[in-house]
């Protein structure tokens, strides 16, 4: 009973929510929104609990004096400071300030550095895995991207815009659609495994 009850709840609720996507009956719709509301609430609770687990694990690592414990002190101070600040001033202004002056500059600077890392790793990939065709592929992509960037800032070139347009509109789009269709099938399979009770991540 202790094992089968959570499975029965997950399978039952999951099946009802799935059915409501395909059969828009008002009774089922109401049930769906009720279940979704509950899950949002539970997700919120999980987030708060995870925040305290986060602080707890950081504190434990600091006490062990593992390498990098100084960094962890900074993380704990920043996290508790932000949490306290948001509790006392829970206005969008505070969140917006954090986004504008902390998260976005940090993210953008990391992205800038990532561009350098990716260029280096791209060349490494060509050397390690590419062979002759790898060089050709890398050069082709590089030239197309350079031409595209040039066009975006300086205006379209006589014939290259048609070539890059064709590459993006036909080759790239076909490839992306193929990948997305395959992934959609994978998501359906994953969902069906949970609905059939074959996957039980919630089971202890």
């Amino acid at each position, binding site marked *: 009973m202790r094992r089968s009850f959570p499975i029965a709840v997950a399978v039952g609720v999951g099946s009802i929510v799935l*059915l409501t*996507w395909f059969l828009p009956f008002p009774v089922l719709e109401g049930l769906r929104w009720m279940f979704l509301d509950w899950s949002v609430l539970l997700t919120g609770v999980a*987030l708060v609990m995870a925040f305290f*687990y986060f602080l707890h694990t950081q504190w434990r690592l600091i006490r062990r004096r593992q390498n990098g414990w100084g960094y962890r002190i900074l993380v704990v101070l920043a996290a508790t400071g932000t949490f306290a600040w948001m509790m006392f001033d829970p206005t969008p202004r505070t969140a917006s300030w954090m986004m504008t002056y902390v*998260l976005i500059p940090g993210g953008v600077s990391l992205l800038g550095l990532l561009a350098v890392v990716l260029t280096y790793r791209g060349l490494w990939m060509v050397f390690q895995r590419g062979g002759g065709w790898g060089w050709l592929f890398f050069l082709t992509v590089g030239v197309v991207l350079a031409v595209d960037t040039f066009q975006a800032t300086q205006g379209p070139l006589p014939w290259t815009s048609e070539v890059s347009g064709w590459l993006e509109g036909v080759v790239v789009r076909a490839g992306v659609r193929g990948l997305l269709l395959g992934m959609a099938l994978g998501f359906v*399979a994953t969902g069906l*495994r949970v609905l*059939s009770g074959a*996957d039980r991540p919630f089971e202890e």
Partner: protein
Amino acid sequence: MFLAGLIGLALVLLFGGMMVLARFAFHTENLFERLRGIPLFSGLYEGLALTMEAGWPIHYALGWGSLWGEAGGSALVALRAFQAIGQFAMRGDQPPDASSGDGLVYMLGSNVLNRLAREQYTAERWLDRMYVTGFHPWGYAAGTLAFPLARDTELALLLGHFGVEAGWMAEMAPRVFGATDDLVGQAVLYATCDEALVGEEVLAAGAYTRAGPAHGASLWAQDVMRWLLILVLFLGAPLYVVLVGGGG
């Protein structure tokens, strides 16, 4: 609208029916033996064995994707593969670290670890090895990158939902294997990791880690559905041109 819903439901039921058929028509071992080789998985087990033999720690990153949303599929697969890989990794001297950037995934990951620890009677070594290292993608990447500082991680497996920040995380160990459901993340991982998965391969991780017969059966059903889809696309395109009219 109602007809489209019925067709969708019929397709899902067909998919489910084929999973059940494969589960009972084929022997479990046959399902797994039919899988084509993916370098990441053969390299992963070889890397895990070598790392464990040398006594170096392993890091398993479950990504920052939540179960609530599009990333839920990869998070679920990552959790299931975590169980299979964890069972293998428990034979080593060093217990692996695991990290997540989502509260629910963290709790479920802890659950997996606790269950494994109880089954293998190694609770004291495996306790508190699951961490929440940050909630924002960049925060999660930065928090996870602090682990090699502490434990000289030799091998890292990034399996779950990662975006462009995966490029940083691929620097966390000498040997890194990566898989994500995000297309941009896949491109970044392909360039930065030793081995990476492309497309829906990430969602097949359960079958390749032999997480259970249902994973082999669902992958077989998925392949059949893919061929059906290809057939529909090839027949549908000329039919559309003939019946509706093609061109710009």
